[in-house]
Every structure is written in structure tokens, then in C-alpha cells.
């Protein structure tokens, strides 16, 4: 069995968990094993149908009032109990903030190795081989894990979402008690960013700005451009962040986030090696820069050499027109 942890936020399963489930399904079919999903929370039974739709044959349901809010310790206890019961050969998580917090804890409890932030999974001689970026994508490491289950986190936005097929499956309810005193740290509040924009790691389109923008106020240009697309986010180079023009949660690169959107638009970014590392796995890269020699053009599929203050507004208009058609 390949099992996948279903992360829920705002009463829904996260898209990146469904991507991980879709990938689990594909590999499980290849290996001739079944796919299962695990839901943990207070009242999450209603979410089982979407897990079935994306390929789970079984949904393990661990419902408990003490698991209503996320805690790494409570959820680890629940998931270790699941592994004890179902004995999956592999256990996948989405490499989200929660998945990155939780998967290592679960792996340590099981005494298992962990493949973090995978971008490719293949079946070789009956075993899973995981490929993951290191040095923020300057190199790629492939590995197999000796321990069972093979625990892995899968990078969001990389593995294609399967087609949803409305089918029923088997719900397996599990009782897990979380003894008092087990959970010594818990989430007391979730604070959303006011803009409620998508995170750069989850966006389909990322519009990033660098020093060429000349000041924080000009990020408005990029926000306008991003607003043309349905799931777009604004990113930034390290120098823009270090200058205080935009928050570090927007930083793309080796000390920021690694992104792989369908479209990455780099505006006024020269392309320092540590920035290139964070965005080179984007499907299509567009660069706008006035310096024709800027290193960013070496990785761009399409480049415009010109003044960004003139190009970006026109690009926005043209895109708007094209997307309206």
C-alpha cells in the first residue's frame, strides 16, 4: 500500500495533498499495490469522497476532538498508529509547511528515513526511487530508502493532479487516544496575510521583481501584472528583500523559496546564481531586463530587452487581451 496524508485547511483537502495522492496512485498501479488516504482531525469524514475521487481505495479516518487543531505531536501519534495498523510500504506527504513540519517527526517515530521535497518518483526493480533537488536545485539527488515505510514529501505544483472520478471506497475508522500531556505545543491561531494571495510555491504564475524596480512602490506594477492571472503570486530577488522592499516570504532563491510555476516572469532581476537556483525548474521563464547581458537571459525561454517601466504595463494589457479571448 502507498498511503498519503491528507492535509486539510479551511475545511478542504489541500490541492498539493491531492497531487501527492495522484502520484501515489500512479506508482501504486505500477507496483500492483493499493492506494490509501489518511484524514486526521475533528470532523473530517465529509472529505473522504474527494480522496476517493483522486485514487484512494481506502480512507483511514482518525477523528478526535484533541486533533481539531494541528499539533506536530498529536498528529505524529495518530499517523504512527495508522502505520502500525495499515503497514504501508510507502507514506507520502505534500511538502507544504505542515508536511515539512510533520513528516520528519513521523519518520523519526517510525525509525524511518525520509526523502524530502521530491520532484520525481519512479519504480525501479520493485522499489521507489526518489529524486529531489539539493542546493536549491543546483543539483539533483536520487535515492532509495532502506527503511519501511518509505516516507517522502512531494513538492507542490510538480506532480500532475489526476482526473477526479467520483467513486466510493472503504472508510476505515480508527480510534486514537491522545493521552493528556502528550501535546506540549499547539497552534493557537492562524493569521492570514491580508492580501490573501497565493503563496509563491503554490502559484501557477510567479511575477518576480529585483533591483531594477528601483523601489518598493514599484512592486505595484508586478501586482497589477500578476492580477491578470487566476493563481498568480508576486516574488522577489534577495536584494529586493534585503532592501526591505517586500517581505521575505516572497523571496525566491537559495535563501528563499524554490518555485516551479507554469510561468515565471522575472522583472528587473539580473539573475544571481542563488536566484537562478530557486526558479530554474519553472516550466516557462520570461525575463524583462534592460541589460541584454544579464545572466537571467541565459535561462529564460523568452526575454525582452527593454525598460521594465515601459514593458510591464504593455505586457499586462496584451496578456489581459489574450486571456479574455
Amino acid at each position: 500500500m502507498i498511503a498519503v496524508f491528507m492535509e486539510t485547511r479551511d475545511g478542504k483537502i489541500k490541492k498539493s495533498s491531492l497531487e501527492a495522492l495522484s502520484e501515489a496512485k500512479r506508482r501504486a498501479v505500477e507496483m500492483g499495490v493499493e492506494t490509501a488516504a489518511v484524514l486526521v482531525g475533528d470532523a473530517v469524514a465529509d472529505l473522504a469522497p474527494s480522496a476517493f475521487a483522486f485514487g484512494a481505495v481506502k480512507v483511514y479516518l482518525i477523528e478526535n476532538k484533541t486533533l481539531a487543531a494541528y499539533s506536530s505531536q498529536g498528529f505524529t501519534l495518530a499517523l504512527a498508529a495508522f502505520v502500525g495498523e495499515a503497514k504501508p510500504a510507502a507514506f507520502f506527504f505534500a511538502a507544504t509547511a505542515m508536511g515539512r513540519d510533520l513528516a520528519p517527526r513521523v519518520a523519526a517515530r517510525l525509525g524511518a528515513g525520509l526523502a524530502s521535497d521530491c520532484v520525481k518518483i519512479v519504480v525501479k526493480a520493485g522499489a521507489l526511487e526518489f529524486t529531489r533537488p539539493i542546493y536549491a536545485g543546483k543539483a539533483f539527488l536520487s535515492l532509495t530508502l532502506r527503511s519501511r515505510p518509505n516516507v517522502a514529501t512531494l513538492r507542490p505544483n510538480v506532480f500532475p493532479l489526476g482526473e477526479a472520478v467520483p467513486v466510493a471506497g472503504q472508510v476505515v475508522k480508527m480510534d486514537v487516544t491522545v493521552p493528556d500531556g502528550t501535546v506540549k505545543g499547539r497552534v493557537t491561531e492562524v493569521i492570514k496575510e491580508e492580501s490573501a494571495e497565493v503563496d509563491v510555491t503554490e502559484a501557477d504564475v510567479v511575477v518576480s521583481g529585483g533591483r531594477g524596480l528601483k523601489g518598493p512602490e514599484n512592486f505595484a506594477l508586478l501586482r497589477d501584472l500578476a492580477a491578470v492571472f487566476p493563481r498568480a503570486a508576486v516574488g522577489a530577488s534577495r536584494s529586493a528583500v534585503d532592501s526591505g522592499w517586500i517581505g521575505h516570504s516572497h523571496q525566491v532563491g537559495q535563501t528563499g523559496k524554490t518555485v516551479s510555476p507554469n510561468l515565471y516572469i522575472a522583472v528587473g532581476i539580473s539573475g544571481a546564481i542563488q536566484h537562478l537556483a530557486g526558479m530554474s525548474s519553472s516550466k516557462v521563464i520570461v525575463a524583462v531586463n534592460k541589460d541584454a547581458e544579464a545572466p537571467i537571459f541565459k535561462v529564460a525561454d523568452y526575454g525582452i530587452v527593454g525598460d521594465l517601466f515601459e514593458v510591464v504595463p504593455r505586457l499586462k494589457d496584451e496578456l489581459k487581451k489574450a486571456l479574455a479571448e
Partner: protein
Amino acid sequence: MNILVFVKRVPDTESRIRIQHETKSIVEEGLNFVVSPYDEYAMEEALKLREAQGGTVRAVSVGKDEAVVVLRKCLAMGADEAFLVKDDSPETYDGLRTARIIARTVERKFAGTDLLLFGKQAVGTDNSQVPAMVAELLGLPQATVVTKLEVEGASATALREIEGGMEKIVLSLPAVVTAQKGLNEPRYETLKGIMAAKKKDIPVVKLEELGFGPDELVSQVDVTGLDVPAQRQCGRILTGEPAETARELVGLLRTEAKII
């Protein structure tokens, strides 16, 4: 408050990475090694907490003798003491192995620690595994990817970064916290600090002292491949009137790249 800060020696972020294919490893020759950038935020936070509340700050690194350099930097920044847990094995990419070494070191050598600070990940291996694994092995609560930390008595409140926002976490100490950029602005070492750091002794903890069974430190990870990504092809560069190039680009994105 007794604080441990865990630091790793890594190639700086400007490094070009080359591969030694036979051994499936990174070519270390010519690389400039530094304290992993996120570990510096952890170090700074520890020093700020000590300044505000007193106590000790100890820096610990697991690695080869070369790691002494990053420990000296921690001493120069202001750590009271630094320890090298000597592990001569090449990079295993196995977070669990390192986590076991650290957890055992804490149990055997640093009982009574209130706070274990790490960078959110080591730049390079990019695993983000060790801190949460250490927390689990020691039965401690954790807050990872933290941009704000407040400690009061035996409890801490942390803001941690999640997609599109923040989570507030309340933890009882002892606890594991990992630092994200934005937590603080790491200080530079002073000349006086550097001079003093040179004179300090850095005790070495040997793996044999930690009493591991024969199989406990076997890596769970078998590296099957290591490669640099294929160079992206240099694309099409448009020059000319802004309105014209913008129109041309959108046309290409539609007809050639087929993404809009």
C-alpha cells in the same frame, strides 16, 4: 536559560556546484564554506535571549574537524562555549542519522537545556528533517520556520510561516525551534570577539562516547544518482519598441509555449 544552537558548515550560496560522478558526491575543492545562513538567525536569536534573560548559549556542530571554523564564528558572535561532535562520515543525506547523534548528545552531555535552536534547514542538503526528528526523539514540542519568538518563563510563543500567512504556536519548554529569515538580523563578529574566540577551547565529543548500537547509525539512504540539471536552452530574445515586444511575447506564449 540554557540554549543550544546547532550549526552546520556548508558551501556559501554563491557556489557553483560540481559533481564527482564516481563517488556520487559534491566536489568540495574550491568551495567557500560558511555557517549555513539560517543557522546564523538561530545563533542571533539565542544571543538576544541571553542578553534579555541571562543564561548560556552553546553552539554545537556535527561534522568533521573542518566544522571547527563555523564553531569559532559562533564563539566570535558571542556563544559561551562550542562543541564539535566529531563525525567523519561523508554526507549521507540521511536526516535521521544526524538527528540520532544530536538527540543522544543532548541527553548525554546537555541535560537541562531549555531551548534547542536550529536553522530551518541546512543550505545544501535542503532536507529540513533534523530539527523535527530531534524533537520527536527527545519528546519535545517544536515550532519550525519561525519568524518571531517570545520566551516567558517555561513557555514560548512562536510565529511560524505557512502558505499565505502565519501560525501562532504556544510551546512549553524545553522545545525545538527552527529559524527562518526575518527572525532577526544576525550581528557581525567584533574584532575583540574574533580574538577571544581564537583562544577558546572547542571540546570534541566522539561518536563512541554516545553509546550507539552497531546498526543505529547506518544510513537509511542509498544514493543512486547525483547530477546537475540540464542547462536550459538560451531562449528567444526580443528587442525593440516596448509595445511591439510585449505583443510579440504574448503571441509566443500562446502559439509556441502554449501556456496561455
